[in-house]
């Protein structure tokens, strides 16, 4: 009993102690929560962002990115109440609804002057459920959503408008980037729809009343291209870009979103999410555009960049699950400038790599025939303002082919050998005159860069028809020197770079850029500045005795890329000798001619070909010509009535050929043919009575044997002996 009482007492003591500890812990948690709430409230009230005035703040961003010493805070600007948001959202100028994805993407950069003004103007704020509902209603009415806005640079910002499709539920968050000066979050409409019903995850864009009326506002392209896609534009801000924020158009906000996509690609971060197909004949067509199976192709000037070897590239490549693999090829553009009619025409030129068919069926354009071995006939889509906004992707669904032209801020054209008009090129080169298609607001910046590159002043084809609103065609860009300073990434294609030339000297060229393995070309690079490095297939190259560049494995079969870093690159391929890889196959050539005489036979080169397991034998004419196997099988040859020849397709490999023109010994002849493995194998099989009979009769006449060599005579003697022995056993 005493033990039981002690045990009971201990249990009670433990319960009491535990309860006390739990109470203390709860009190501590409550205090900590209270302190935290106080801190957050103080911080929120110090910010310039509009916020809900009920004091209950649901943290949807990691941290407001406004410095505490910002002018906005010093001025103590009033924060608009949530009622302002309700009034603001349905505003006519807002076609989209802002979405901000917490917590990875703080909306605005910390510490910059731009951010301070942005904080004053943008008014990004988490909203409560009512606000979210209202926004959702507005979004349903407009069919669009918007994202937080940032100021786009005045000029020289690479901007690509990409039209997303409904099929892409993608979201991109760009981490902080010191150079770019901001953080961006991109979500397309589908993703936004998912988040629309979640209170507190949506942020409202800047109130129009608070926005400035900067000239850049003209650049905002707010178009409703249907349910499936809203044009998005992005630009790359420069470090010294103006700090103020642009007019609060939600289209601009979406541009910012795609800006993040482009910047992500340029900073070699993980590539942007699937961004939609851009090429459409009718932007207003509500039918959904074909959904891309891959991430959008965004152009990057890779001159001077190290390349991965083909094997590495193949290793690193991946395909989207569930999407059938498409053979991809490049789509170029053709710019036709008709100076007589003052007209500009843009066409797509689909390349035709080896293995592509003669005819393709491109969606929306129907059948397109091959122009030559390198490309197809031109396709002339309607040059709408959206056409060059993003990537261009054309497909032949039936053949599983796809042509892609990556998105880029401007299109560069030059004369290409063999083409009558200007063809798009990836980068400018010395000595060539280029044309440029760009957005109107970028033309001034491009003109400035052209002057730095030593080009004559660019001519704007403003009076020409065919150029859509918001775009310009500039001609006469002829760079004569490298840019003095490294231009922004988006403008690098305008820089012809150092005049380094990689040349392949000699070699046995089989196709353009493809050489026989045993005679590879010699790689020369000139001039080579002292600061440059040379790589072949990613391996450091060195100069050989003759001054040409080599690297380990440079002369192995396969593709090789010569990279000058920084500088140009050039590739060549070495084809392995076909003799080392099984050689060449025979085929039934001339069968239509030969089959009139000998069905199933053909003449391929110098050889008579026949089906597997058959052997061809021809002989001089005779009254009797019999093919004899080594130990079995005999077959009489067919005597041609119209020609002095006897022929046969045998189902065995002959060892002997007995030819007879009469009964005399001198009228007979025995040819000992070459023995091969097939004939030798037949020696292991049981003897054939017909063979025995034929050999016995032939041997009894003792015909002359040709060739009269000991080996041939021994072979025939062995066969005759085997025939005679077989009879004795029986």
């Amino acid at each position, binding site marked *: 009993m005493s033990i039981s009482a002690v045990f009971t007492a201990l249990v009670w003591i433990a319960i009491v102690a535990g309860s006390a500890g739990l109470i203390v812990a709860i009190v501590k948690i409550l205090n900590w929560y209270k302190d935290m709430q106080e801190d957050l409230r103080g911080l929120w009230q110090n910010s310039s962002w509009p916020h809900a005035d009920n004091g209950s703040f649901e943290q949807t961003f990691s941290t407001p990115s406004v410095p505490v010493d910002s002018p906005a805070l010093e001025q103590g600007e009033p924060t608009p109440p949530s009622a302002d948001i309700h009034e603001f959202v349905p505003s006519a100028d807002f076609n989209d609804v802002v979405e901000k994805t917490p917590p990875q993407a703080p909306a605005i950069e910390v510490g910059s002057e731009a951010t301070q003004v942005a904080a004053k103007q943008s008014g990004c704020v988490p909203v409560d459920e009512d606000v979210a509902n209202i926004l959702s209603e507005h979004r349903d009415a407009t069919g669009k959503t918007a994202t937080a806005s940032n100021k786009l640079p005045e000029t020289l910002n690479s901007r690509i408008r990409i039209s997303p499709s409904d099929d892409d539920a993608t979201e991109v968050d760009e981490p902080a980037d010191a150079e770019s000066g901001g953080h961006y979050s991109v979500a397309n409409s589908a993703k936004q729809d998912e988040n629309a019903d979640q209170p507190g995850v949506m942020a409202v864009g800047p109130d129009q009343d608070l926005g400035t009326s900067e000239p850049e506002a003209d650049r905002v392209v707010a178009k409703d291209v249907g349910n499936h896609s809203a044009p998005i534009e992005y630009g790359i801000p420069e470090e010294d870009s103006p700090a103020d924020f642009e007019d609060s158009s939600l289209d601009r906000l979406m541009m910012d979103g795609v800006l993040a996509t482009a910047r992500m690609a340029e900073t070699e971060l993980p590539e942007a999410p699937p961004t939609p197909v851009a090429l459409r004949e009718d932007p207003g067509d509500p039918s959904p555009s074909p959904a891309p199976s891959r991430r959008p192709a965004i152009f990057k000037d890779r001159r001077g960049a190290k390349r991965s070897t083909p094997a590495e590239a193949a290793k690193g490549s991946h395909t989207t699950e569930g999407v059938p693999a498409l053979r991809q090829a490049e789509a170029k553009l053709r710019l036709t400038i008709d100076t007589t009619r003052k007209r500009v025409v843009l066409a797509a030129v689909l390349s035709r790599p080896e293995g592509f068919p003669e005819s393709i069926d491109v969606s929306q354009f129907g059948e397109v025939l091959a122009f030559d071995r390198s490309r197809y006939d031109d396709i002339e889509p309607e040059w709408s303002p959206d056409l060059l906004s993003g990537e261009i992707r054309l497909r032949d669904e039936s053949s599983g082919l796809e042509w892609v032209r990556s998105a880029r801020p401007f299109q560069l054209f030059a004369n290409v050998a063999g083409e009558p008009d200007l063809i798009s090129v990836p980068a400018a080169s010395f000595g060539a005159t280029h044309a440029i298609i760009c957005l109107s607001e970028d033309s001034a910046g491009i003109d400035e860069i052209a002057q730095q590159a030593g080009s004559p002043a660019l001519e704007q084809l403003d009076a020409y028809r065919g150029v859509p609103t918001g775009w310009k065609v500039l001609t006469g860009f002829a760079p004569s020197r490298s840019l003095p300073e490294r231009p922004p990434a988006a403008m690098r294609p305008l820089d012809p770079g150092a005049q380094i030339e990689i040349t392949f000297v000699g070699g*046995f060229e089989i196709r353009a850029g493809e050489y026989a393995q045993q005679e590879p070309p010699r790689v020369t690079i000139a001039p080579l500045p002292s600061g440059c490095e040379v790589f072949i297939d990613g391996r450091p190259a060195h100069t050989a005795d003759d001054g040409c560049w080599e690297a380990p494995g440079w002369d192995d079969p396969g593709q090789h890329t010569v990279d000058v870093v920084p500088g140009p690159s050039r590739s060549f391929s070495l084809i392995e*000798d*076909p003799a*080392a890889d099984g050689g060449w196959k025979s085929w039934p050539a001339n069968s239509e001619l030969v089959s009139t005489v000998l069905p199933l036979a053909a003449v391929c*080169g110098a*050889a008579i070909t026949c089906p597997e397991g058959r052997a061809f034998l021809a002989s001089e004419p005779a009254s009797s010509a019999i093919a004899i196997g080594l130990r079995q099988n005999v077959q009489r040859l067919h005597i041609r009535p119209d020609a002095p020849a006897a022929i046969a397709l045998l189902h065995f490999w002959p060892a002997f050929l007995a030819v007879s023109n009469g009964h005399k010994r001198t009228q007979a002849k025995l040819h000992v043919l070459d023995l091969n493995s097939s004939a030798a194998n037949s020696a292991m099989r049981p003897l054939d009575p017909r063979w025995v009979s034929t050999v016995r009769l032939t041997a009894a006449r003792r015909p002359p044997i040709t*060739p009269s060599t000991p080996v041939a005579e021994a072979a025939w003697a062995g066969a005759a002996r085997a025939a005679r022995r077989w009879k004795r056993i029986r």
Partner: protein
Amino acid sequence: MGRRREGRPPLEANPMRDRLLEWMSYRSQGNAADLPHGLAAAEKRRWQLEDMAVLGHIELDQDGRWRIAPPTLADTSGEVEEAHAAVVCGARTRGVTERLLSACQLHGGSIESSAQADGRPDRIIVSAPTSPALSAIAVSAGMRRQRDAGFSILACLPAIRSWPRTACPMVDGKVEDVSRFSKSELKWKPSSLDAARQEVHGLFQIKRDWTTVTLIKSGRDTQAQIDLLAGRLAAVAGAKRLRLDLQARTLRLPLALKPPILISRALTLCSGALPEIDWETRHLIYRDIPIKTARLAISITGLRLA
């Protein structure tokens, strides 16, 4: 066709002189227009391709498409059983010649190379002490061997009188030119469409806007399209135009009666060299023709010995 030139030193280490054949061997197939300018002059491409086809290196279509044939040792030793020699036909790269050299060294064979005119591929003759040794060389080199190649190819071909032809109606409408092949003069003579309709026999070439058709008449209202080379032989069937020299083992026939490629290939493979052209008499001369092959060729072509 070009004159044969011999006397080159035997094939040594690995001189690869046959650039065009090597290039075609890497490409495997293509068009006449694909041939690189540096290796084949534009105006001579068709002739070069025809010569390559006659030598057994390629197969050539009517529209100029070619395809390389697999490497083959084609026996040249028709009746001389003791001398086992073969000419190397088909694709030829350094890898092929290297393997052939190794095989010859292994089996006691020898290789002799001689140049041909006008940059045609060298004639490479592989000799072996015995026929089995030659077969072993072919196996070691990864090549096929065609026994008695010239005779075998001829034996597979239809006679000219049975050469494939396509019956067709007589040409109507506007034509640019009509000519008839003269059996006596062995040349094309101007003619007319009416004459072509009225004739019972003869070979006519009718040029229309874009095409030229070769018709062989076998009756007043019976005609058929036929290959031009075969048609000329068919038109002069039975003519005593062949000259056979048993001592020199040569077969001569008029240049105007150049046989179809497969017949010419069969006769060429007897020596491995392109036929010579005697410009004075305007004759083609095929050399080293065995008697049995000559008899077969006479029968196939339908000509008679002069």
